[in-house]
């Protein structure tokens, strides 16, 4: 036992868990674990993407109409915010690897703020949908799905649903359920990501990470990029359908 302890002192890092042989093995396990987890996430979102694909091809007019009702400006803003946050996250990983603690903490804080900005903008969008009675089903008791429909020839009202030929309100409701399910699940992942970032910031301030031990930053960074990529798919699929039909 005694000799084992001394060899650990010589070769072991204080963050090395007992069942790993060395830091390299521990880092490899952590990174692979996150990649495998992201595979499960792809399958999880995959179920919803499948439903989206089916109903989008079955009801193109309704999906285009409903998509046009989403706020493209806020959606585009959020896309920019997330891409930027991915950049700062990548820089945080880099600064951890080279052992520069101050820019590392700064990058993590900026990433967290950008993430929170995204969630704030998302909340504004959700509230708009609530105002326009676009929350599907009985998700919110007392506020059933009941949007005002734009009559033909009337001046354009952004709070009214403009139905393209062939679209029905029921199918628009289906779109909005898919919209809320997908963006809601995405937002949940963002909230979890924000929690993880807070944990990273606290531990960075304590100086727990160094060039030898940076896998938590790297692994949570992977998670953060994944959540961003999901949004990169969600934005065009949900926001950019049938714009050309509306304004073309």
């Amino acid at each position, binding site marked *: 036992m005694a000799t084992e302890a001394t060899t650990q002192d010589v070769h072991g890092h204080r963050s090395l868990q007992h*069942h790993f042989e060395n830091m390299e093995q521990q880092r490899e396990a952590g990174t692979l674990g996150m990649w495998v987890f992201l595979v499960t996430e792809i399958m999880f979102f995959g179920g919803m993407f499948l439903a989206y694909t089916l109903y989008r091809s079955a009801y193109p007019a309704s999906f285009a109409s409903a998509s046009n009702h989403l706020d493209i400006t806020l959606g585009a803003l959020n896309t920019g915010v997330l891409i930027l946050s991915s950049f700062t996250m990548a820089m945080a990983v880099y600064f951890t690897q080279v052992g520069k603690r101050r820019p590392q903490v700064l990058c993590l804080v900026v990433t967290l703020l950008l993430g929170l900005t995204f969630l704030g903008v998302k909340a504004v969008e959700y509230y708009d949908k609530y105002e326009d009675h676009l929350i599907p089903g009985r998700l919110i008791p007392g506020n059933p799905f009941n949007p005002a429909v734009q009559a033909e020839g009337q001046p354009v009202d952004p709070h009214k649903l403009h139905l393209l030929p062939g679209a029905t309100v029921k199918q628009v409701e289906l779109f909005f359920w898919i919209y809320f*399910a997908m963006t809601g699940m995405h937002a949940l992942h963002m909230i979890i990501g924000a929690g993880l970032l807070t944990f990273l910031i606290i531990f960075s301030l304590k100086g727990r990470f160094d060039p030898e031990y940076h896998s938590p930053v790297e692994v949570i960074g992977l998670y953060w990029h994944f959540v961003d990529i999901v949004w990169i798919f969600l934005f065009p699929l949900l926001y950019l359908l049938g714009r050309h039909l509306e304004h073309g």
Partner: protein
Amino acid sequence: MRAIESFEVPAPPRVNYINAQYGLKSWLLTKDHKRIALLYLGSITFFFFIGGLYAMMIRLELLTPQGDLLQSTTYNKVFTQHGIIMIFFFLIPSIPATLGNFLIPMMIGAKDLAFPRINLLSWYIYLLGGVITIYALLAGGVDTGWTFYTPFSTTFSNSYVVATGLGIFINGFSSILTGLNFIVTIHTMRAPGMTWFRMPLFIWSHYATSLIFILGTPVIAITILLLAFERIAHVGIFDPALGGDPILFQHLFWFYSHPAVYIMVLPSMGVISELIANFSRKNIFGYSFVAFSSLAIAVFGFLVWGHHLFVTSQSVYAGMIFSFLSFAVAIPSAIKVFNWTATLYKSSISYDTPMLYALGFIGLFTVGGMTGLFLASLAVDVHLSDTYFVVAHFHYIMVGGALMGYLGGLHYWWPKISGRMYPEGWGRFSALVIFVGFNLTFLPQFIAGYLGMPRRYHAYPPEFQVFNVLSTAGASILGFGMLIPAIYFVWSMRYGKHAEANPWHLPGLEWRTQSPPPTENFEVTPIVTWDAYEFAPREETEVVGKFRPELERI
């Protein structure tokens, strides 16, 4: 009193994972994979007996053609709950979470799984899912069948669908974490010299199982989540009133639930590969074929879900493709069966209890697999769909396959797990009772189903009674057979003969450490220089004579 008295000097107990620490806390907060395996073993046994209780009620009701013991509504709940408990809370975690958890690190020469805390977390998640499901059962139960088909489950059922769904949803994360842990462990934690093709086949089959865990389980999670929202908030992704498609639910459900069958049977196949090679003391025939057939089953398993939808509105071309692929999945399964049989050929077989289970497995799995081909044929399936033929078929796979492997494995590694030997005579006896009871239960169901007896009814025309009486009689024998190991395993923990480190005299890494193993598994990290089933050369065996362990020590 005599002057000379002989008495045993008790050897000082060696430190092992069981006696390293005492107290409830040391178990509930353990990060040792071996202790977590035992936590799982206890909890899945509990769920097994609950599921068995429901099975007993089903068989008692079906003893007579009239619906006299249970009302139709109660009967619906009983068979639903039998399925849910047995599938989600017994069969899916059974071998991976107990034997896999215990043995994967030991077989590859690691100190633990890659993520011990996640391993413990997965047990708590399993427990939470189990508690919620049990709550749903006690509160009033669920009557949708374990398949939760829409729109019955979303709109019409008046039972606890959401609570049960929540239990299964939560439980799914325990599977995901187990699979993730196994994959990372097998990739990164192998001891020096333990190359991929030196790994025991048990590891290969668990690797394949883990792939299904991580690729399939998230899909059932999102499906059940959407189902629950639809039921609570009437947001209909599966609701035709909104343009949704109820059949989409079946597609998503079976995308997980068909591969889930392979989650149940693949680990069992891994156990059988170990048992066949080790109890015939011969290198497995075609190691790499057996290894890759596991992966092939995992991959093909994801491409056959549509054969559950032959009698829905699925396109006939999709049906043809799914039918073809379902036939294709028989190929890797047959590779395994033929290779096991070829291993047995001209080998020195010892008929210990685990081997009896393994031989039973080969027969029962073959019957289960062959009848699966009946169901994969489009035209035949129209006749057989939703009959007792289907029930008999999947019980041959799940009980005759998965459960046989589980029991065989439990006997085989019991000396390592508990440090005690189980009583061999009782073991053989109960293996035979279980085999006879099982066949008596489910063989008649093939005939009843082929003659047209539908599943999921509490009453049936009197001409089917003879099959049902046979079946109920068999189920009683089966239930009795199950009780015997339950009793002697508990008995052996205290009174069983002490097991030595390698009671079967085998080359595997798990046998190269004391029984029960120390917390760290090995005193020094082993260096592997041998193949998985490298037995002593033939000349040595001929000098010793038969390959009985007690002879080998001479």
